[in-house]
Protein backbone atom coordinates (compact mmCIF):
# COMPACT_ATOMS: atom_id res chain seq x y z
CA UNK A 1 0.00 0.00 0.00
CA UNK A 2 0.90 3.68 -0.14
CA UNK A 3 2.74 5.76 2.43
CA UNK A 4 1.30 6.27 5.86
CA UNK A 5 -0.12 9.77 6.32
CA UNK A 6 -1.64 9.40 9.77
CA UNK A 7 -1.04 7.02 12.61
CA UNK A 8 -3.22 6.92 15.69
CA UNK A 9 -1.54 5.12 18.58
CA UNK A 10 -3.26 4.01 21.80
CA UNK A 11 -5.55 7.02 21.78
CA UNK A 12 -7.58 7.51 24.96
CA UNK A 13 -10.04 10.24 25.82
CA UNK A 14 -11.83 10.28 29.14
CA UNK A 15 -14.68 12.51 30.22
CA UNK A 16 -15.74 13.08 33.82
CA UNK A 17 -19.06 11.50 34.70
CA UNK A 18 -21.67 14.12 35.48
CA UNK A 19 -22.23 14.52 39.19
CA UNK A 20 -19.14 12.61 40.20
CA UNK A 21 -15.73 14.01 40.96
CA UNK A 22 -13.72 10.86 40.44
CA UNK A 23 -15.58 8.65 37.99
CA UNK A 24 -14.68 8.94 34.32
CA UNK A 25 -16.09 7.46 31.16
CA UNK A 26 -13.71 6.40 28.41
CA UNK A 27 -15.24 7.73 25.21
CA UNK A 28 -12.19 6.59 23.26
CA UNK A 29 -10.53 3.57 24.77
CA UNK A 30 -7.09 2.68 23.44
CA UNK A 31 -7.72 3.21 19.74
CA UNK A 32 -4.96 2.58 17.19
CA UNK A 33 -5.17 2.65 13.43
CA UNK A 34 -3.27 3.79 10.37
CA UNK A 35 -4.42 5.92 7.46
CA UNK A 36 -2.62 5.65 4.14
CA UNK A 37 -2.00 8.46 1.67
CA UNK A 38 -4.81 8.81 -0.85
CA UNK A 39 -7.23 6.35 0.72
CA UNK A 40 -10.68 6.84 2.14
CA UNK A 41 -11.11 5.20 5.53
CA UNK A 42 -14.63 4.74 6.87
CA UNK A 43 -15.14 5.08 10.61
CA UNK A 44 -18.52 3.55 11.41
CA UNK A 45 -20.32 3.40 14.73
CA UNK A 46 -23.53 4.33 16.49
CA UNK A 47 -23.99 7.35 18.74
CA UNK A 48 -21.74 7.09 21.76
CA UNK A 49 -19.29 4.81 19.97
CA UNK A 50 -16.56 7.44 20.18
CA UNK A 51 -16.17 7.98 16.45
CA UNK A 52 -16.62 11.75 16.54
CA UNK A 53 -14.47 12.09 19.66
CA UNK A 54 -11.73 10.15 17.87
CA UNK A 55 -11.96 12.54 14.91
CA UNK A 56 -11.83 15.58 17.16
CA UNK A 57 -8.81 14.20 19.01
CA UNK A 58 -7.02 13.58 15.71
CA UNK A 59 -7.51 17.21 14.73
CA UNK A 60 -6.71 18.23 18.31
CA UNK A 61 -9.98 20.08 18.62
CA UNK A 62 -10.16 18.36 21.98
CA UNK A 63 -7.11 17.13 23.87
CA UNK A 64 -6.79 13.37 24.20
CA UNK A 65 -6.14 11.98 27.68
CA UNK A 66 -3.25 9.91 26.39
CA UNK A 67 -1.87 8.38 23.22
CA UNK A 68 -0.28 9.78 20.11
CA UNK A 69 -1.45 11.03 16.72
CA UNK A 70 1.36 10.99 14.17
CA UNK A 71 0.75 13.11 11.09
CA UNK A 72 3.45 12.39 8.53
CA UNK A 73 5.57 11.06 11.36
CA UNK A 74 5.17 13.98 13.77
CA UNK A 75 3.07 13.92 16.90
CA UNK A 76 0.18 16.35 16.56
CA UNK A 77 -0.25 16.40 20.32
CA UNK A 78 3.27 17.72 20.89
CA UNK A 79 3.41 20.23 18.06
CA UNK A 80 4.43 23.84 18.60
CA UNK A 81 1.90 26.54 17.82
CA UNK A 82 3.50 27.25 14.46
CA UNK A 83 3.54 23.59 13.45
CA UNK A 84 0.00 23.15 14.66
CA UNK A 85 -1.10 25.99 12.41
CA UNK A 86 0.43 24.23 9.42
CA UNK A 87 -1.24 20.97 10.48
CA UNK A 88 -4.61 22.69 10.83
CA UNK A 89 -4.32 23.86 7.23
CA UNK A 90 -3.40 20.42 5.97
CA UNK A 91 -6.10 18.59 7.91
CA UNK A 92 -9.62 19.96 7.47
CA UNK A 93 -12.97 19.04 8.94
CA UNK A 94 -16.32 18.85 7.19
CA UNK A 95 -19.15 19.08 9.70
CA UNK A 96 -22.33 17.07 9.99
CA UNK A 97 -24.85 19.85 10.26
CA UNK A 98 -24.70 22.24 7.31
CA UNK A 99 -27.04 24.61 9.15
CA UNK A 100 -25.12 25.30 12.34
CA UNK A 101 -21.66 25.06 10.80
CA UNK A 102 -22.00 28.09 8.52
CA UNK A 103 -22.08 31.58 10.05
CA UNK A 104 -25.49 32.98 9.04
CA UNK A 105 -24.14 36.52 8.94
CA UNK A 106 -21.31 35.85 6.53
CA UNK A 107 -21.61 35.79 2.78
CA UNK A 108 -20.68 32.56 1.06
CA UNK A 109 -17.62 34.12 -0.54
CA UNK A 110 -16.33 35.24 2.87
CA UNK A 111 -17.07 31.86 4.44
CA UNK A 112 -15.04 30.04 1.80
CA UNK A 113 -12.18 32.53 1.65
CA UNK A 114 -11.73 33.00 5.41
CA UNK A 115 -9.14 30.23 5.57
CA UNK A 116 -7.26 31.69 2.60
CA UNK A 117 -6.83 35.00 4.41
CA UNK A 118 -5.53 33.23 7.50
CA UNK A 119 -3.19 30.75 5.89
CA UNK A 120 -2.16 32.68 2.76
CA UNK A 121 -2.25 36.34 3.93
CA UNK A 122 -0.21 37.49 0.97
CA UNK A 123 -2.71 36.40 -1.65
CA UNK A 124 -4.02 39.34 -3.67
CA UNK A 125 -7.72 40.02 -4.08
CA UNK A 126 -7.61 38.80 -7.65
CA UNK A 127 -5.86 35.60 -6.64
CA UNK A 128 -8.45 34.97 -3.93
CA UNK A 129 -11.27 35.53 -6.40
CA UNK A 130 -9.68 33.22 -8.97
CA UNK A 131 -9.31 30.60 -6.27
CA UNK A 132 -12.93 31.05 -5.20
CA UNK A 133 -14.13 30.52 -8.76
CA UNK A 134 -12.05 27.40 -8.99
CA UNK A 135 -13.45 26.06 -5.70
CA UNK A 136 -17.03 26.77 -6.69
CA UNK A 137 -16.72 24.80 -9.87
CA UNK A 138 -15.05 21.96 -7.97
CA UNK A 139 -18.00 21.52 -5.65
CA UNK A 140 -20.71 22.37 -8.18
CA UNK A 141 -21.77 25.85 -7.09
CA UNK A 142 -22.10 29.01 -9.21
CA UNK A 143 -20.27 32.31 -9.11
CA UNK A 144 -23.43 34.26 -8.31
CA UNK A 145 -23.70 32.25 -5.08
CA UNK A 146 -20.72 34.11 -3.60
CA UNK A 147 -22.66 37.17 -2.49
CA UNK A 148 -25.53 35.30 -0.90
CA UNK A 149 -25.99 34.30 2.72
CA UNK A 150 -26.28 30.67 3.89
CA UNK A 151 -30.02 31.01 4.57
CA UNK A 152 -30.81 31.05 0.86
CA UNK A 153 -29.31 27.60 0.30
CA UNK A 154 -30.69 24.11 0.70
CA UNK A 155 -28.99 21.53 2.94
CA UNK A 156 -27.13 19.95 0.02
CA UNK A 157 -25.84 23.28 -1.24
CA UNK A 158 -24.75 24.27 2.25
CA UNK A 159 -22.80 21.06 2.54
CA UNK A 160 -21.08 21.96 -0.73
CA UNK A 161 -20.20 25.35 0.75
CA UNK A 162 -18.73 23.59 3.80
CA UNK A 163 -16.70 21.33 1.53
CA UNK A 164 -15.43 24.29 -0.53
CA UNK A 165 -14.38 26.03 2.71
CA UNK A 166 -12.44 22.94 3.76
CA UNK A 167 -10.78 22.59 0.34
CA UNK A 168 -9.84 26.28 0.07
CA UNK A 169 -6.65 25.88 2.08
CA UNK A 170 -5.46 22.90 0.03
CA UNK A 171 -5.63 20.20 2.68
CA UNK A 172 -4.15 16.73 2.28
CA UNK A 173 -6.44 15.14 4.82
CA UNK A 174 -10.18 15.64 5.01
CA UNK A 175 -12.03 14.46 8.12
CA UNK A 176 -15.75 14.24 7.36
CA UNK A 177 -18.06 13.88 10.34
CA UNK A 178 -21.31 12.39 9.00
CA UNK A 179 -21.50 14.95 6.19
CA UNK A 180 -24.54 13.41 4.48
CA UNK A 181 -26.56 12.31 7.52
CA UNK A 182 -28.87 15.32 7.48
CA UNK A 183 -29.43 15.49 3.72
CA UNK A 184 -32.35 14.29 1.63
CA UNK A 185 -31.90 10.85 0.13
CA UNK A 186 -31.55 12.07 -3.44
CA UNK A 187 -28.96 14.66 -2.33
CA UNK A 188 -26.89 12.21 -0.26
CA UNK A 189 -25.80 10.32 -3.34
CA UNK A 190 -24.77 13.57 -5.07
CA UNK A 191 -22.55 14.57 -2.15
CA UNK A 192 -21.07 11.07 -1.78
CA UNK A 193 -20.16 11.16 -5.47
CA UNK A 194 -18.61 14.59 -4.99
CA UNK A 195 -16.29 13.21 -2.28
CA UNK A 196 -15.33 10.37 -4.62
CA UNK A 197 -14.49 12.82 -7.43
CA UNK A 198 -12.52 15.13 -5.14
CA UNK A 199 -10.57 12.25 -3.69
CA UNK A 200 -9.50 11.20 -7.16
CA UNK A 201 -8.90 14.61 -8.73
CA UNK A 202 -7.12 16.17 -5.74
CA UNK A 203 -5.49 13.05 -4.33
CA UNK A 204 -7.14 13.67 -0.97
CA UNK A 205 -6.96 11.34 1.97
CA UNK A 206 -10.37 11.05 3.64
CA UNK A 207 -11.54 9.84 7.02
CA UNK A 208 -15.26 9.46 6.60
CA UNK A 209 -17.41 9.05 9.71
CA UNK A 210 -20.85 7.51 9.41
CA UNK A 211 -23.40 5.79 11.59
CA UNK A 212 -24.24 3.08 9.11
CA UNK A 213 -22.30 0.75 6.90
CA UNK A 214 -24.14 1.51 3.66
CA UNK A 215 -23.04 5.16 3.42
CA UNK A 216 -19.29 4.47 3.43
CA UNK A 217 -19.28 1.41 1.20
CA UNK A 218 -18.98 3.24 -2.10
CA UNK A 219 -16.32 5.68 -1.03
CA UNK A 220 -14.09 3.82 1.40
CA UNK A 221 -11.55 1.13 0.58
CA UNK A 222 -11.09 0.35 4.24
CA UNK A 223 -13.59 0.47 7.08
CA UNK A 224 -13.19 0.55 10.86
CA UNK A 225 -16.15 -0.35 13.07
CA UNK A 226 -16.29 1.30 16.49
CA UNK A 227 -18.38 0.48 19.54
CA UNK A 228 -18.09 1.83 23.08
CA UNK A 229 -14.83 3.60 22.36
CA UNK A 230 -13.13 0.55 20.90
CA UNK A 231 -12.41 -0.45 17.31
CA UNK A 232 -14.14 -3.80 17.04
CA UNK A 233 -12.99 -4.56 13.54
CA UNK A 234 -10.94 -2.89 10.83
CA UNK A 235 -10.35 -4.23 7.38
CA UNK A 236 -10.68 -3.84 3.66
CA UNK A 237 -14.08 -3.21 2.16
CA UNK A 238 -14.21 -6.81 0.97
CA UNK A 239 -13.43 -8.21 4.42
CA UNK A 240 -15.92 -6.04 6.28
CA UNK A 241 -18.87 -6.43 3.92
CA UNK A 242 -18.39 -9.95 2.65
CA UNK A 243 -16.92 -11.61 5.69
CA UNK A 244 -17.48 -9.59 8.85
CA UNK A 245 -15.77 -11.20 11.82
CA UNK A 246 -17.04 -9.32 14.84
CA UNK A 247 -20.61 -9.94 16.07
CA UNK A 248 -21.13 -6.20 16.35
CA UNK A 249 -20.26 -5.66 12.68
CA UNK A 250 -22.68 -8.44 11.81
CA UNK A 251 -25.45 -6.89 13.87
CA UNK A 252 -24.86 -3.58 12.08
CA UNK A 253 -25.03 -5.38 8.76
CA UNK A 254 -28.43 -6.96 9.43
CA UNK A 255 -29.78 -3.66 10.78
CA UNK A 256 -28.99 -1.53 7.73
CA UNK A 257 -32.13 -1.32 5.68
CA UNK A 258 -31.84 -1.85 1.95
CA UNK A 259 -34.46 -1.08 -0.70
CA UNK A 260 -35.17 -4.75 -1.39
CA UNK A 261 -38.34 -6.23 0.15
CA UNK A 262 -37.31 -9.87 -0.31
CA UNK A 263 -33.98 -9.58 1.48
CA UNK A 264 -35.45 -7.21 4.07
CA UNK A 265 -38.16 -9.71 4.99
CA UNK A 266 -35.43 -12.30 5.41
CA UNK A 267 -33.44 -9.90 7.63
CA UNK A 268 -36.58 -9.19 9.68
CA UNK A 269 -36.98 -12.93 10.18
CA UNK A 270 -33.31 -13.23 11.22
CA UNK A 271 -33.64 -10.38 13.68
CA UNK A 272 -36.78 -11.83 15.21
CA UNK A 273 -35.05 -15.20 15.56
CA UNK A 274 -31.80 -13.98 17.01
CA UNK A 275 -30.95 -10.39 17.65
CA UNK A 276 -34.38 -9.32 18.77
CA UNK A 277 -35.10 -8.79 22.45
CA UNK A 278 -31.85 -7.02 23.13
CA UNK A 279 -33.28 -3.67 24.10
CA UNK A 280 -31.11 -0.62 23.54
Amino acid at each position, binding site marked *: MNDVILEVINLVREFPVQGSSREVVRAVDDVSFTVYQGEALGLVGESGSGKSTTARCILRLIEPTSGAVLYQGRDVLKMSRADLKVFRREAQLVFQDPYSSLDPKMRVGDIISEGLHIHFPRMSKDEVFAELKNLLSLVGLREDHLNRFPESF*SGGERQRIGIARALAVKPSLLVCDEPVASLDVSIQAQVLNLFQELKESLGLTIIFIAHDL*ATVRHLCQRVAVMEQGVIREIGSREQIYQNPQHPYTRSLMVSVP*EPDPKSE*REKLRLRQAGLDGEA*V
Partner: protein
Amino acid sequence: MIKPQTQSVKASSNSGDLILDVSRLSVQFQGDNGPVLAVNDVSFQVRAGERVGIVGESGSGKSVTAQALLSLLSGATIEGEVNFQGQNILEMAPEKLRKLRGWDISYIFQDPLSAMDPVRTVGDQVSQVLRLRGVGRLEAKERAIAMLSRVGIRNPEARFGDYPHQFSGGMRQRAMIAMALIGDPALVIADEPTTALDVRVQAQVIDLLYELTEERGVAVVFITHDLSILAAFAQRMMVMYAGRIVESGATDDIYYGSIHPYTLGLLNSLPRVTGDIAKELTTIGGQPPAPTNIPAGCAFNPRCRYVVDQCSEETPQLTIPKGANHPSRCHRSQWLAEKPGELR
Protein backbone atom coordinates in the same frame (compact mmCIF):
# COMPACT_ATOMS: atom_id res chain seq x y z
CA MET B 1 -59.64 -6.41 32.38
CA ILE B 2 -61.12 -3.83 30.01
CA LYS B 3 -64.27 -2.29 31.37
CA PRO B 4 -67.25 -2.80 29.13
CA GLN B 5 -68.20 0.88 28.97
CA THR B 6 -64.75 1.95 27.80
CA GLN B 7 -64.67 -0.75 25.21
CA SER B 8 -68.12 -0.06 23.85
CA VAL B 9 -67.19 3.49 22.87
CA LYS B 10 -65.10 2.14 20.09
CA ALA B 11 -66.48 1.06 16.73
CA SER B 12 -64.95 -2.30 15.99
CA SER B 13 -63.53 -3.03 12.58
CA ASN B 14 -62.93 -6.34 10.96
CA SER B 15 -59.76 -7.06 9.12
CA GLY B 16 -60.04 -5.86 5.55
CA ASP B 17 -62.75 -3.26 6.22
CA LEU B 18 -62.09 0.18 4.82
CA ILE B 19 -61.26 2.35 7.83
CA LEU B 20 -59.66 5.40 6.28
CA ASP B 21 -60.70 7.02 3.06
CA VAL B 22 -58.83 10.16 2.11
CA SER B 23 -60.44 11.83 -0.82
CA ARG B 24 -59.04 14.73 -2.84
CA LEU B 25 -57.16 16.21 0.10
CA SER B 26 -55.48 19.56 -0.53
CA VAL B 27 -53.75 21.65 2.11
CA GLN B 28 -52.77 25.24 1.55
CA PHE B 29 -50.82 27.47 3.91
CA GLN B 30 -50.66 31.24 3.87
CA GLY B 31 -47.01 32.00 3.19
CA ASP B 32 -45.19 35.34 3.29
CA ASN B 33 -45.31 35.52 -0.48
CA GLY B 34 -48.80 34.21 -1.11
CA PRO B 35 -50.44 30.82 -0.68
CA VAL B 36 -48.35 27.65 -0.53
CA LEU B 37 -49.94 24.43 -1.71
CA ALA B 38 -48.32 21.77 0.50
CA VAL B 39 -50.63 18.89 -0.39
CA ASN B 40 -52.26 18.74 -3.78
CA ASP B 41 -55.25 16.50 -4.48
CA VAL B 42 -54.21 13.42 -2.54
CA SER B 43 -56.51 10.40 -2.34
CA PHE B 44 -55.85 7.04 -0.75
CA GLN B 45 -57.43 4.38 1.39
CA VAL B 46 -56.35 2.22 4.28
CA ARG B 47 -57.99 -1.03 5.31
CA ALA B 48 -58.13 -2.42 8.83
CA GLY B 49 -54.86 -4.03 9.85
CA GLU B 50 -52.99 -2.79 6.79
CA ARG B 51 -49.49 -1.26 6.88
CA VAL B 52 -49.16 1.53 4.34
CA GLY B 53 -46.06 3.63 3.71
CA ILE B 54 -45.83 7.21 2.49
CA VAL B 55 -42.38 8.11 1.14
CA GLY B 56 -41.11 11.52 0.20
CA GLU B 57 -38.26 13.98 0.63
CA SER B 58 -38.51 17.24 2.52
CA GLY B 59 -41.24 19.41 1.06
CA SER B 60 -43.07 16.48 -0.50
CA GLY B 61 -46.13 17.04 1.69
CA LYS B 62 -45.91 13.69 3.46
CA SER B 63 -45.93 15.06 7.02
CA VAL B 64 -48.65 17.59 6.27
CA THR B 65 -50.75 14.74 4.87
CA ALA B 66 -50.15 12.78 8.09
CA GLN B 67 -51.14 15.72 10.26
CA ALA B 68 -54.31 16.26 8.22
CA LEU B 69 -55.37 12.70 9.06
CA LEU B 70 -55.83 13.78 12.67
CA SER B 71 -56.91 17.31 11.81
CA LEU B 72 -53.79 18.67 13.45
CA LEU B 73 -53.34 21.55 11.03
CA SER B 74 -54.40 24.91 12.28
CA GLY B 75 -54.23 27.95 10.07
CA ALA B 76 -54.32 25.94 6.88
CA THR B 77 -56.96 25.90 4.19
CA ILE B 78 -58.00 22.30 3.76
CA GLU B 79 -60.09 20.85 0.98
CA GLY B 80 -61.31 17.33 0.47
CA GLU B 81 -62.34 14.70 2.96
CA VAL B 82 -60.66 12.44 5.49
CA ASN B 83 -63.22 9.78 6.31
CA PHE B 84 -62.40 7.58 9.24
CA GLN B 85 -64.87 4.74 9.79
CA GLY B 86 -67.41 6.69 7.78
CA GLN B 87 -67.01 10.09 9.46
CA ASN B 88 -65.24 13.09 7.98
CA ILE B 89 -62.54 14.04 10.48
CA LEU B 90 -62.07 17.46 8.95
CA GLU B 91 -65.64 18.47 9.83
CA MET B 92 -65.74 16.91 13.25
CA ALA B 93 -66.55 19.00 16.32
CA PRO B 94 -63.54 19.58 18.60
CA GLU B 95 -65.18 17.59 21.40
CA LYS B 96 -65.64 14.56 19.16
CA LEU B 97 -62.19 14.91 17.70
CA ARG B 98 -60.68 14.84 21.15
CA LYS B 99 -62.37 11.51 21.84
CA LEU B 100 -61.00 10.10 18.62
CA ARG B 101 -57.40 11.19 19.00
CA GLY B 102 -55.16 8.82 20.89
CA TRP B 103 -58.03 6.38 21.18
CA ASP B 104 -59.22 5.38 17.70
CA ILE B 105 -56.34 6.99 15.84
CA SER B 106 -53.02 7.66 17.51
CA TYR B 107 -49.88 9.38 16.37
CA ILE B 108 -46.23 8.51 16.88
CA PHE B 109 -44.07 11.59 16.50
CA GLN B 110 -40.59 11.82 15.07
CA ASP B 111 -39.00 13.28 18.15
CA PRO B 112 -40.33 11.79 21.38
CA LEU B 113 -38.34 14.21 23.49
CA SER B 114 -40.32 17.17 22.22
CA ALA B 115 -43.58 15.24 21.85
CA MET B 116 -43.61 14.10 25.47
CA ASP B 117 -44.21 16.42 28.40
CA PRO B 118 -40.87 16.83 30.18
CA VAL B 119 -42.37 17.53 33.61
CA ARG B 120 -44.71 14.55 33.75
CA THR B 121 -43.61 10.99 34.29
CA VAL B 122 -43.56 8.53 31.42
CA GLY B 123 -46.06 6.30 33.23
CA ASP B 124 -48.44 9.18 33.72
CA GLN B 125 -48.32 9.97 30.03
CA VAL B 126 -48.69 6.39 28.89
CA SER B 127 -51.71 5.82 31.13
CA GLN B 128 -53.31 9.17 30.34
CA VAL B 129 -55.23 7.83 27.35
CA LEU B 130 -56.94 5.30 29.64
CA ARG B 131 -57.53 7.77 32.45
CA LEU B 132 -59.26 10.18 30.05
CA ARG B 133 -61.66 7.39 29.12
CA GLY B 134 -62.64 6.79 32.70
CA VAL B 135 -60.37 3.89 33.57
CA GLY B 136 -59.52 3.95 37.28
CA ARG B 137 -56.10 5.05 38.43
CA LEU B 138 -54.93 1.66 39.64
CA GLU B 139 -56.16 -0.24 36.63
CA ALA B 140 -54.67 2.36 34.27
CA LYS B 141 -51.32 2.04 36.01
CA GLU B 142 -51.46 -1.73 35.83
CA ARG B 143 -52.23 -1.67 32.13
CA ALA B 144 -49.57 0.97 31.43
CA ILE B 145 -46.95 -1.15 33.18
CA ALA B 146 -48.02 -4.20 31.17
CA MET B 147 -47.77 -2.12 27.99
CA LEU B 148 -44.34 -0.72 28.88
CA SER B 149 -43.17 -4.25 29.51
CA ARG B 150 -44.60 -5.37 26.17
CA VAL B 151 -42.65 -2.70 24.27
CA GLY B 152 -39.42 -3.97 25.81
CA ILE B 153 -38.83 -1.65 28.74
CA ARG B 154 -37.11 -3.58 31.48
CA ASN B 155 -38.25 -3.17 35.04
CA PRO B 156 -41.40 -1.26 33.99
CA GLU B 157 -42.72 -0.84 37.56
CA ALA B 158 -39.66 1.24 38.44
CA ARG B 159 -39.48 3.06 35.08
CA PHE B 160 -43.18 4.04 35.34
CA GLY B 161 -42.19 6.95 37.58
CA ASP B 162 -39.24 8.12 35.45
CA TYR B 163 -39.31 11.33 33.47
CA PRO B 164 -38.74 11.32 29.68
CA HIS B 165 -35.20 12.68 30.00
CA GLN B 166 -34.24 9.63 32.05
CA PHE B 167 -34.98 7.40 29.05
CA SER B 168 -32.57 6.86 26.15
CA GLY B 169 -33.74 7.83 22.64
CA GLY B 170 -34.71 4.27 21.74
CA MET B 171 -36.51 3.77 25.06
CA ARG B 172 -38.45 6.98 24.61
CA GLN B 173 -39.61 5.87 21.20
CA ARG B 174 -40.67 2.55 22.74
CA ALA B 175 -42.63 4.50 25.36
CA MET B 176 -44.25 6.53 22.56
CA ILE B 177 -45.29 3.30 20.90
CA ALA B 178 -46.74 2.12 24.21
CA MET B 179 -48.63 5.39 24.49
CA ALA B 180 -49.93 5.07 20.93
CA LEU B 181 -51.09 1.48 21.28
CA ILE B 182 -52.42 1.31 24.84
CA GLY B 183 -55.87 2.46 23.77
CA ASP B 184 -56.04 -0.28 21.09
CA PRO B 185 -56.56 2.15 18.22
CA ALA B 186 -57.70 1.05 14.80
CA LEU B 187 -55.09 3.22 13.11
CA VAL B 188 -51.63 4.46 14.06
CA ILE B 189 -49.92 7.24 12.16
CA ALA B 190 -46.14 6.99 12.53
CA ASP B 191 -44.39 10.14 11.32
CA GLU B 192 -40.71 9.30 10.76
CA PRO B 193 -40.59 7.54 14.14
CA THR B 194 -37.01 6.31 13.73
CA THR B 195 -35.22 9.17 11.98
CA ALA B 196 -33.33 10.24 15.09
CA LEU B 197 -32.27 6.73 16.07
CA ASP B 198 -29.17 4.64 15.47
CA VAL B 199 -29.43 1.89 12.87
CA ARG B 200 -29.71 -0.99 15.29
CA VAL B 201 -32.23 0.80 17.49
CA GLN B 202 -34.11 1.83 14.37
CA ALA B 203 -34.39 -1.78 13.29
CA GLN B 204 -35.60 -2.79 16.77
CA VAL B 205 -38.22 -0.05 16.93
CA ILE B 206 -39.56 -0.87 13.46
CA ASP B 207 -39.60 -4.58 14.28
CA LEU B 208 -41.49 -3.82 17.49
CA LEU B 209 -44.05 -1.70 15.67
CA TYR B 210 -44.39 -4.46 13.09
CA GLU B 211 -44.98 -7.16 15.71
CA LEU B 212 -47.39 -5.17 17.84
CA THR B 213 -49.55 -3.95 14.99
CA GLU B 214 -49.54 -7.42 13.47
CA GLU B 215 -50.67 -9.09 16.71
CA ARG B 216 -53.32 -6.47 17.43
CA GLY B 217 -54.53 -5.97 13.89
CA VAL B 218 -53.80 -2.24 13.98
CA ALA B 219 -53.49 -0.39 10.68
CA VAL B 220 -50.40 1.81 10.27
CA VAL B 221 -49.65 4.75 8.03
CA PHE B 222 -45.86 5.04 8.15
CA ILE B 223 -44.32 8.29 6.91
CA THR B 224 -40.64 8.28 5.96
CA HIS B 225 -38.02 9.78 3.69
CA ASP B 226 -36.19 6.45 3.53
CA LEU B 227 -37.57 3.89 1.10
CA SER B 228 -35.35 1.20 2.58
CA ILE B 229 -37.02 1.00 5.97
CA LEU B 230 -40.41 0.31 4.40
CA ALA B 231 -39.22 -2.64 2.35
CA ALA B 232 -40.14 -5.27 4.92
CA PHE B 233 -42.63 -3.22 6.90
CA ALA B 234 -45.21 -1.95 4.44
CA GLN B 235 -47.59 -3.99 2.35
CA ARG B 236 -48.46 -1.06 0.18
CA MET B 237 -46.91 2.33 -0.37
CA MET B 238 -47.24 5.73 -1.94
CA VAL B 239 -44.45 7.94 -3.19
CA MET B 240 -45.03 11.67 -2.86
CA TYR B 241 -43.31 14.49 -4.70
CA ALA B 242 -44.07 18.21 -4.48
CA GLY B 243 -47.39 17.66 -2.73
CA ARG B 244 -48.75 14.94 -4.96
CA ILE B 245 -48.79 11.16 -5.00
CA VAL B 246 -46.65 10.21 -7.99
CA GLU B 247 -46.79 6.44 -7.68
CA SER B 248 -48.61 3.95 -5.49
CA GLY B 249 -48.78 0.20 -5.35
CA ALA B 250 -47.96 -3.01 -3.53
CA THR B 251 -44.49 -2.87 -1.97
CA ASP B 252 -42.91 -5.42 -4.30
CA ASP B 253 -44.41 -3.73 -7.36
CA ILE B 254 -42.85 -0.42 -6.36
CA TYR B 255 -39.40 -1.82 -5.51
CA TYR B 256 -39.11 -4.31 -8.34
CA GLY B 257 -41.32 -2.75 -10.97
CA SER B 258 -41.50 0.99 -10.45
CA ILE B 259 -42.83 2.92 -13.41
CA HIS B 260 -42.04 6.42 -12.18
CA PRO B 261 -38.65 8.08 -12.87
CA TYR B 262 -38.54 9.68 -9.41
CA THR B 263 -39.08 6.40 -7.56
CA LEU B 264 -36.56 4.70 -9.86
CA GLY B 265 -34.08 7.48 -9.14
CA LEU B 266 -34.57 7.18 -5.39
CA LEU B 267 -34.16 3.42 -5.46
CA ASN B 268 -30.98 3.67 -7.49
CA SER B 269 -29.40 6.38 -5.37
CA LEU B 270 -29.71 4.53 -2.06
CA PRO B 271 -26.41 3.12 -0.84
CA ARG B 272 -26.43 -0.59 -0.02
CA VAL B 273 -24.28 -3.02 1.91
CA THR B 274 -24.56 -5.79 -0.68
CA GLY B 275 -24.32 -6.08 -4.46
CA ASP B 276 -21.96 -4.47 -6.96
CA ILE B 277 -19.96 -1.47 -5.94
CA ALA B 278 -20.58 0.87 -8.81
CA LYS B 279 -17.91 3.50 -9.22
CA GLU B 280 -20.51 6.19 -8.82
CA LEU B 281 -23.89 6.09 -7.16
CA THR B 282 -26.66 6.86 -9.59
CA THR B 283 -28.12 10.20 -8.64
CA ILE B 284 -31.10 12.39 -9.30
CA GLY B 285 -29.78 15.78 -10.34
CA GLY B 286 -30.97 19.03 -8.78
CA GLN B 287 -33.06 19.17 -5.66
CA PRO B 288 -36.71 18.89 -4.64
CA PRO B 289 -38.62 22.10 -5.41
CA ALA B 290 -39.74 24.40 -2.61
CA PRO B 291 -43.53 24.29 -2.16
CA THR B 292 -43.54 27.98 -3.12
CA ASN B 293 -41.95 27.28 -6.45
CA ILE B 294 -43.32 24.11 -8.00
CA PRO B 295 -42.45 23.69 -11.69
CA ALA B 296 -45.28 23.73 -14.22
CA GLY B 297 -46.43 20.51 -15.81
CA CYS B 298 -44.93 17.50 -14.08
CA ALA B 299 -43.21 18.86 -10.96
CA PHE B 300 -40.35 16.39 -11.41
CA ASN B 301 -39.58 17.36 -15.02
CA PRO B 302 -36.48 19.55 -14.37
CA ARG B 303 -34.78 16.61 -12.62
CA CYS B 304 -36.06 13.81 -14.82
CA ARG B 305 -33.72 11.88 -17.09
CA TYR B 306 -36.57 10.73 -19.33
CA VAL B 307 -38.12 14.16 -19.78
CA VAL B 308 -39.94 15.03 -23.05
CA ASP B 309 -41.55 18.30 -24.18
CA GLN B 310 -44.98 17.29 -22.93
CA CYS B 311 -43.68 17.08 -19.34
CA SER B 312 -43.27 20.81 -18.83
CA GLU B 313 -46.56 21.63 -20.51
CA GLU B 314 -49.10 19.24 -19.11
CA THR B 315 -49.57 17.84 -15.60
CA PRO B 316 -49.72 14.04 -15.81
CA GLN B 317 -52.55 12.14 -14.13
CA LEU B 318 -52.19 9.29 -11.67
CA THR B 319 -53.28 6.44 -13.92
CA ILE B 320 -52.50 2.79 -14.48
CA PRO B 321 -50.78 2.45 -17.85
CA LYS B 322 -51.57 -0.50 -20.10
CA GLY B 323 -49.62 -3.58 -19.06
CA ALA B 324 -48.85 -2.27 -15.57
CA ASN B 325 -50.40 -3.24 -12.25
CA HIS B 326 -50.30 0.06 -10.38
CA PRO B 327 -50.77 3.78 -11.04
CA SER B 328 -48.03 6.29 -11.80
CA ARG B 329 -48.16 10.02 -12.46
CA CYS B 330 -45.91 10.18 -15.50
CA HIS B 331 -46.46 10.86 -19.20
CA ARG B 332 -43.98 8.12 -19.98
CA SER B 333 -45.22 5.48 -17.53
CA GLN B 334 -46.50 3.38 -20.42
CA TRP B 335 -43.02 3.45 -21.97
CA LEU B 336 -41.45 2.68 -18.57
CA ALA B 337 -43.87 -0.21 -18.03
CA GLU B 338 -42.66 -1.78 -21.28
CA LYS B 339 -39.11 -1.93 -19.95
CA PRO B 340 -39.47 -3.93 -16.74
CA GLY B 341 -36.19 -4.17 -14.86
CA GLU B 342 -34.11 -2.58 -17.62
CA LEU B 343 -33.91 0.80 -15.99
CA ARG B 344 -32.67 -0.28 -12.59
